[in-house]
């Protein structure tokens, strides 16, 4: 293949990725050559500019149809765009959180590693090929490992990073093991090709291997989205990492995980044979793989919801609390998947949007407070007296996380409930789990209310908030309320711009 062939591909569909890549590379060079003493906040602004450009590029692509390059190792469809959009915004917030004020500083590596992680996530969302997907996943993971451990003088950070690497490595290995079988059964790495080949006799003969391969792949992704029982790394890592990194892991990384999970669930396996036999006049055929594994997805969702919420009840450390909370939310997000609802894309996307706003907001608050001490639940005591606006913002996030109306979280949860109840038969089991989980979550979310509003504070000093964080707080709080009051903003947005069904067209 010569240069001409290469050039004739629609490379311009990759502009967002290119932008991020170029920014990352440029920043690493700048960082390298910049005076070591100099403040790195300039880099953050550059990175933000890069993200802004990427968002603009992405927005310009919104109404394009499906574009795929090079045997679909890169595929730009609405699905990818929708998730990339979220990841870009989330990363923007995370970068803003990292804007240093007078007393703190920021490391240059931190900034461009976040960008490379983002790049990995974007590639994951945009790939229709196991290899691209894997490399994207690894790019995200590796960047994350480093980001977690970047406060290398901090033993907690080191430990968190190490745990992350070990758990992540094992999960990757399991996923890859599954992928290898997937490849073996079809001889292809392109998931649309795989989709077509899944119905073949060879696969039917070895249908259990296909199912196992599927499950092993899911394990690796479940690890990324912190679904129980693959969640256990998360609390430790979240706690050990710097708060903006935690926010990144709990939001952007999870969005990427869900993107890839959805795609892998919906594309390669739709025609795959499952375990159950169906006797038809023409002979024996098999129910589809998705139908066979659906009970286990349901189980996964239920266990995740319950584990997240129940253990969160016992947490004292704020970051760990929110780690479990985010595990529980992953469980909620799994509900539409497990229900195989026709609302699945809308529900997941909207909930992720809401989750992005509220969770980043909550971590922003923790970030503010971690300047003083290791943030525990008790640190919130009397916060209202010390920082009323911060408290109000936090209240909004908490209400949204708890799913109280007039917040984005409620609309999200509403859609998830709809997705579970809109299928035939209705998924009452999932709904019950969500009910139990939501009620349990009231205890710890409102427990924070009790701290913030009812309890006296140990400290009297007002809380200092940097400008970047203020911006994040303002935008996320406003966004949470706005999407709660006028959800049509987001709902018509996705309807107008994203034809999720594109995901099914090869």
């Amino acid at each position, binding site marked *: 293949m010569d240069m001409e062939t290469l050039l004739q591909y629609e490379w311009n569909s990759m502009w967002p990725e290119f932008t991020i890549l170029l920014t990352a590379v440029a920043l690493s060079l700048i960082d390298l050559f910049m005076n070591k003493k100099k403040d790195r906040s300039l880099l953050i602004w550059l990175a933000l500019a890069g993200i802004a450009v990427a968002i603009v590029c992405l927005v310009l692509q919104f109404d394009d149809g499906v574009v795929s390059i090079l045997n679909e190792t890169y595929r730009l469809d609405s699905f990818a765009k929708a998730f990339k959009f979220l990841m870009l915004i989330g990363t923007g917030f995370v970068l803003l959180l990292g804007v240093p004020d007078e007393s703190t500083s920021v490391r240059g590596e931190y900034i461009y590693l976040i960008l490379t992680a983002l790049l990995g996530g974007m590639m994951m969302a945009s790939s229709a090929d196991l290899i691209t997907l894997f490399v994207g996943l690894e790019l995200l993971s590796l960047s994350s490992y480093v980001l977690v451990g970047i406060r290398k003088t901090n033993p907690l950070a080191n430990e968190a990073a190490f745990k992350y690497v070990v758990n992540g490595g094992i999960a990757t290995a399991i996923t890859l093991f599954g992928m290898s079988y997937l490849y073996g059964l079809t001889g292809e790495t392109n998931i649309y090709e795989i989709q077509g080949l899944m119905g073949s006799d060879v696969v039917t003969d070895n249908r259990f291997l296909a199912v196992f391969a599927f499950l092993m792949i899911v394990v690796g992704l479940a690890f990324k989205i912190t679904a129980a029982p693959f969640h256990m790394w998360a609390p430790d890592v979240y706690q050990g990492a710097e708060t903006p990194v935690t926010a990144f892991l709990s939001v952007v990384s999870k969005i990427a995980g869900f993107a890839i999970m959805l795609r892998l669930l919906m594309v390669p396996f739709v025609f795959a044979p499952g375990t159950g036999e169906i006797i038809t006049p023409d002979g024996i055929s098999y129910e589809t793989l998705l139908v066979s594994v659906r009970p286990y997805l349901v189980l996964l969702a239920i266990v995740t919801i319950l584990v997240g919420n129940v253990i969160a009840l016992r947490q004292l450390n704020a970051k760990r609390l929110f780690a479990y909370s985010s595990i529980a939310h992953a469980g909620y997000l799994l509900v539409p998947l497990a229900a195989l609802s*026709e*609302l699945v*894309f*809308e529900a997941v996307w909207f909930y992720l949007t809401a989750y992005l706003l509220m969770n980043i907001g909550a971590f922003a608050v923790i970030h503010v407070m971690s300047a003083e001490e290791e943030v525990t639940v008790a640190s919130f005591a009397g916060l209202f007296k010390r920082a009323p606006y911060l408290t109000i913002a936090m209240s909004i996030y908490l*209400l949204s996380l708890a799913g*109280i*109306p*007039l917040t984005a979280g*409620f609309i999200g949860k*509403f*859609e998830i*409930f*709809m997705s579970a*109840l*809109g299928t035939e038969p*209705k998924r009452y089991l999932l*709904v019950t789990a*969500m*009910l139990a989980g*939501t*009620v349990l979550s*009231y*205890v710890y979310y*409102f427990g924070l*209310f*009790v701290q913030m*509003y*009812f309890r006296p504070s140990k400290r009297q000093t007002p809380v200092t908030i940097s400008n970047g964080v203020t911006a994040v707080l303002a935008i996320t709080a406003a966004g949470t309320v706005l999407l709660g009051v*006028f*959800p*049509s903003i987001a*709902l*018509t947005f996705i*309807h107008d711009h*994203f*034809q*999720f*069904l594109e995901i099914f067209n090869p």
Partner: protein
Amino acid sequence: MNESFLLTILILSPLLGIVLLSVMPGNHRFINYMGVLGTVLPLVLTLIVFSLFDRTVSGVQFVEYRQWFELMTSISPNEPYTVAYDLGVTGLSVLFLMLASLITFLASLTALRLKESAKGFYILFLLLELGLLGVFVSENLFLFFLFFEITLVSMFLLVGKWGGFNREKAAFSFMIYNGIGSILLLIVIIVLFVEMKTTNITELTMLLKETDSLEFLSGDTRTWLFVLLLIAFGIKLPIVPFHTWMVRVHVEAPIAVVMIHAGVLLKIGAYGLLRFGVGFFPQQLKDMAVVLAILGVINLLYGAFIALVQTELRSVLAYSSISHMGIVLLGVASFNTAGLQGAVFQTISHGLIAALLFLLVGVIVDRFHTTKLEELGGVASQAPLFAGFLLAAGLASLGLPGMSGFISEFLAFLGLFESMPVIGSVGILGLILTAVYMLRAVLAVTFGERRPLFDGIRDLTAVEIVPSAILLSIIIWIGVYPAVLSNTLQLARTIGIGG
């Protein structure tokens, strides 16, 4: 029908108070008065709605309709699920609306005593009112739920911050039970929404009636939905065994809040049951009427018996509420006009009476610093006016004719005796028990030997007399002239069932 924004203005009217309060400095002298003023505007507007409400026509009035948002699935984008901003009042809701804004106003008066962080209190208080008003003017399940949750959150904060010794426990208990209830409600709403593609209450009522052929929802599903609805509102009502939270709140919450809680908030349960349970699932209700009636009798007797041996006034009243709500259930279970009308009457009436009783309990707390029955007694000697009101309230509560309680209980049982005379006969024993425990409690406070300890206690002050007198006169008014309720209610039209 002409669009008017009256209802929107009404539900947003507490916001004015909230805004004004939030710009006032927290230690301002008039902050409490500002709070009270904040509740006046909604009251006035409610009165306007109440008087403009046309009692001669059927259907929903003051309708406002705006499309709010649409949910579209990518698989069938042309069949969106539409959620609307949909207000309106019926004869039923206008009564509850009136109850809500009146009691909120009166309760706000009793909070004038509050010294500590009154600003926050009143802001949340007004937020609570906003929720309450919204619940009763929502013509749409989605909105109903939204406002319902607003009351939940503001109640949680009010109880948790300004309550008694065990306030946080009470607040959590409130949150958990009601949380479960609200999510069950949400599930019902969503199932209806998913199946019917609308959340408009009237529309749903019609649709569910027309599709009795079970085209949309199978009979089983409807039964389940009804059961869920029953639990959801049963927690609120509360139905035994979901009542423990309510006793805690009654005992722990600040008096102004308990007034609202006992007077209005619990009534949402009854409202929901009447509006949705009866409206959406009449057949299921009929099928389960016996179960409902038995639950009602259990509530009635259970509450009454336990109230009989409580040693603390607030607990007595809490269990008394449970007992009285049993009558609401009985009225609903009878499923005829008399019974349903009785259920509505009982709800309203108990709202007023409970508010009055707790207002007076507030006085007790303020003056005597205890609500233990054995530590009180002979109060009639030192505070005859107070004793008189308490006695009147007690008598009203035990269903004295000429007061609202009687006519409500009468109607409810009247209805019940048509459909289930045997259960009615058991339940009616509750009326005797009610007299027993109510007199025991009231007389323990007011009658008895003069206690020198209480000499020099102030009798009711003007700011306490006014709300008490207003409540008592309304109670008597309804008792003497129940048409004031039944004319507005127009039950057959409101709920849509014939006699």
